């Protein structure tokens, strides 16, 4: 199969933008992605588009894909919308890579978008909550915060990790996000701030939960046959892995791991011919602080039960041995659901291309992105590296 490369990527600011639409946010991401292509990019080159969204805040359940590609001027370009809850655009990137590798397309626009900030809290909780296992899990009174809190209860009971370790994840990611001009909550927080915030779903407090955000992301994926037209320093998609699992937590064999993440990572590592030790930094799916700790273990960054030591010892801080979520992650950068997975690829592109500004990780050549749908019903992992 042909190699696939990322030649450009961009995101809109993530945040709350009542004067923007999902289309206008996607246009911003698209324009930034086009501008980022080193040798220039003609939008008429796009053969195909694959975009992710959960449902545009529940207001556009059908044809939301063409709605954004037509808006940005890609008239007539076939567009497919991918839905896998919070992993929608991680899977969209994977579909773009597949289209390129298969030979069906040379240039694919991928990305994602969501608008969530202009809804009442009840409406947000309604449509987010029916994106998990609705008939049983949801009707015990949980939203996703509740399900991840259940996972946290099992993890804290099984390991020596503490609620304070969850707060440390928030402190780290806010420190990173404070250096990201596109972050939704781009401010630093202290451990005291993160410890003392109101409970959402015990043991998770407000600082253990990501915000709901507006935003869009766009990534340009091209084949090895045309990559030279766009860049002399492209980013190669070295590995792609994905896996599905039971949508409801109660149907899984473990509550202290996300098996779909484990399987997705194994497949991505195998395809890339690398292992967790070969990764310079990672963007992981920290929708809740517990999810970041589970990701460390599921992605092979540490042994089972050891995740808390990574964040306690600063290993995953931006200046640590294995920086995780240098963008600020979902916690600080924000989580416009459909934009998140491709947004992680945007950060990987910026870091690997040396364009991450004051949060640049020096010398990074290989990145991992990890995007989870729901509480683990779907997961997708990409390994990206600076082309030789």
């Amino acid at each position, binding site marked *: 199969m042909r190699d696939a490369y990322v030649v450009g990527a961009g995101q809109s600011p993530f945040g709350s933008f009542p004067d923007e639409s999902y289309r206008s946010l996607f246009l911003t991401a698209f324009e930034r992605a086009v501008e980022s292509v080193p040798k220039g990019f003609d939008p008429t080159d796009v053969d195909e588009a694959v975009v992710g969204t959960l449902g545009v805040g529940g207001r556009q359940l059908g044809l939301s894909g063409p709605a954004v590609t037509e808006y940005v001027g890609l008239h007539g370009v076939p567009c497919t919308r991918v839905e896998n809850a919070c992993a929608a655009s991680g899977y969209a990137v994977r579909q773009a890579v597949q289209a390129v590798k298969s030979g069906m397309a040379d240039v694919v626009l991928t990305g994602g978008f969501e608008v969530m900030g202009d809804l*009442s*809290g*009840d*409406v947000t*909780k*309604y449509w987010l*909550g*029916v994106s998990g*296992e*609705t*008939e*049983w*899990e*949801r*009707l*015990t*009174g*949980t*939203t996703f*915060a*509740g399900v991840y*809190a*259940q*996972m*946290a*209860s*099992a993890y804290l*009971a099984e390991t020596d990790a503490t609620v304070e370790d969850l707060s440390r994840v928030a402190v780290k990611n806010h420190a990173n996000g404070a250096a990201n001009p596109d972050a939704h909550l781009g401010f630093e927080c202290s451990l005291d701030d993160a410890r003392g915030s*109101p*409970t*959402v*779903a*015990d*043991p*998770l407090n407000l600082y253990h939960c990501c915000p709901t955000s507006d935003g869009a992301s766009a990534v340009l994926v091209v084949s090895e046959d045309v990559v030279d037209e766009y860049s002399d320093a492209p980013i190669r998609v070295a590995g792609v892995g994905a896996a599905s699992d*039971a949508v*409801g*937590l*109660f*149907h899984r064999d473990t*509550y202290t791991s996300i098996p779909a993440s484990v399987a997705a990572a194994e497949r991505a590592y195998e395809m890339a011919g690398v292992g967790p030790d070969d990764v310079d930094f990672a963007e992981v799916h920290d929708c809740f602080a517990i999810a970041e700790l589970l990701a460390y273990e599921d992605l092979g960054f540490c042994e089972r039960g050891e995740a808390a030591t990574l964040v306690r010892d600063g290993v995953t801080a931006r200046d640590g041995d294995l920086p995780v979520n240098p963008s600020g992650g979902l916690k600080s950068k924000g989580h416009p659901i459909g934009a998140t997975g491709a947004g992680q690829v945007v950060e990987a592109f910026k870091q690997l291309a040396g364009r991450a500004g004051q949060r640049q990780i020096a010398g990074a050549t290989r990145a991992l992105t990890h995007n989870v749908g729901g509480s683990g019903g779907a997961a997708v992992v990409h390994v990206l590296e600076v082309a030789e």
Partner: protein
Amino acid sequence: MRQISSAGAYAPRLRIDAEEFREAWGRFGGAGVRTKAVQDADEDALTMGAEAGRRALDAGGFEGDDVDWLAFATTTPPLEEEDLTVRLGSVLGVPRTATTRTVTGSTRSGVRALADALTAGGTDGVALVVAADCPRGAPDGDEEHAAGAGAAAFAVGDSGAEVVDTATYSEPYPGTRFRSAGDDEVQGLGVTQYDREAYRATLVGAIDALDADLGAVDAAALQAPDGKLPYRVAADLGVSTEQVRAATTVHELGDTGAASAPLGLVSALADGAERVLVAGFGSGASATAMVVENESSVPVGTSLDGDVSLTYADYLRRRGEITSGPPAGGGAYVSVPSWTRSVPQRHRLAAGQCLVCGSLQFPPEGACRDCASLSGFDRVVLATTGTVEAVTTIAAGGAPPEFGEQVAQSGPFASAVVSFGGPDGGAVSVPVQVVLAGDDAVSTGDRVRAVVRRIYTQEDVSRYGVKVVPATG
């Protein structure tokens, strides 16, 4: 005539003291009521009745399968039209071919249903009588101040306590206590002497029609609209105040409506009373009286203790008096047909055992999660106690909107994944809501017990299903 083979009773854990009303109102209209039971926000006559019915069956060593006649007596059916005995029977595992009847419209209906069960001809199996009630009045009304909550149930079969005599009497007394169509609050005109005379005259009429000797009774289970009226008329009925006191729950549970005299009978049976006068009364007015001989001490299962005290503000919240109802944003939509397909799981924790690998599956549908076989499942019923595997307590702001009104009324709840065992070993995980009250706290590893409560109401249709409560003892 058939006999009372076993009995059960249930009252909610929540209690409010009369003093709370005095502080709020400067008076308390529930004469003689010290505390009263208050149904939780997710409880109603159907769920309380199921609790009492389950205890009556368990006490007698019966299964739901043994029941071929089921009566549900209440003045507060959660729906004015729709046969609620169907869902009550489903929760209790009563066969679909059972004869069912709902008796309502009068606080006498509990005793009426028991009398009917005793004479219901041609029944070989168990006749189950469930009386459950949670009356309600205007916040400043005497009826509301006295209004309690509770349920009693009797399994009627071929052995046990014998009803030696039954009589009914009625006489027109309109306007003493009534609830108009479409209204959920009882009211009265408060014509004190007239109200008392209606109660006295009809009870005297029914008791006078009995042939049995009242002097020999150990206890007199009288309808108790409050905690004074039964004593006031005792002498006219030919019983002593001691006999009345020996068979009443009104001082602790309040006015339990159609369950009032039945609860009195259950508590007398539980105390080992050998001969009990039972007299139910309903406004309008009518009364049914019977004499029960309990020489063999029928088995009784009760849960009548209260351990969570409410303030008056808590009480108003529980009753939805000061909450704003479901939010406008809507809730998670599960269609009624889709919910109905899951009724065996919701009502009775029905699971499946994979025909190929034998593992337990919940709900029993789709491919086996262990061996991926699509061969299907044997139906099995899970144990009613289980172990918490993962749990969270949802803070007030964290509940999904369809549970917003419940949180407003009852406060935070927990949501857990609970492992329940199967009949032949093994276990399967089920997501459940954990009902919390008072100082309850639930952690991983804790034992919990399944109960059926109202899960939520959507499109005006209440969906009942399994929740859990902390297991005690």
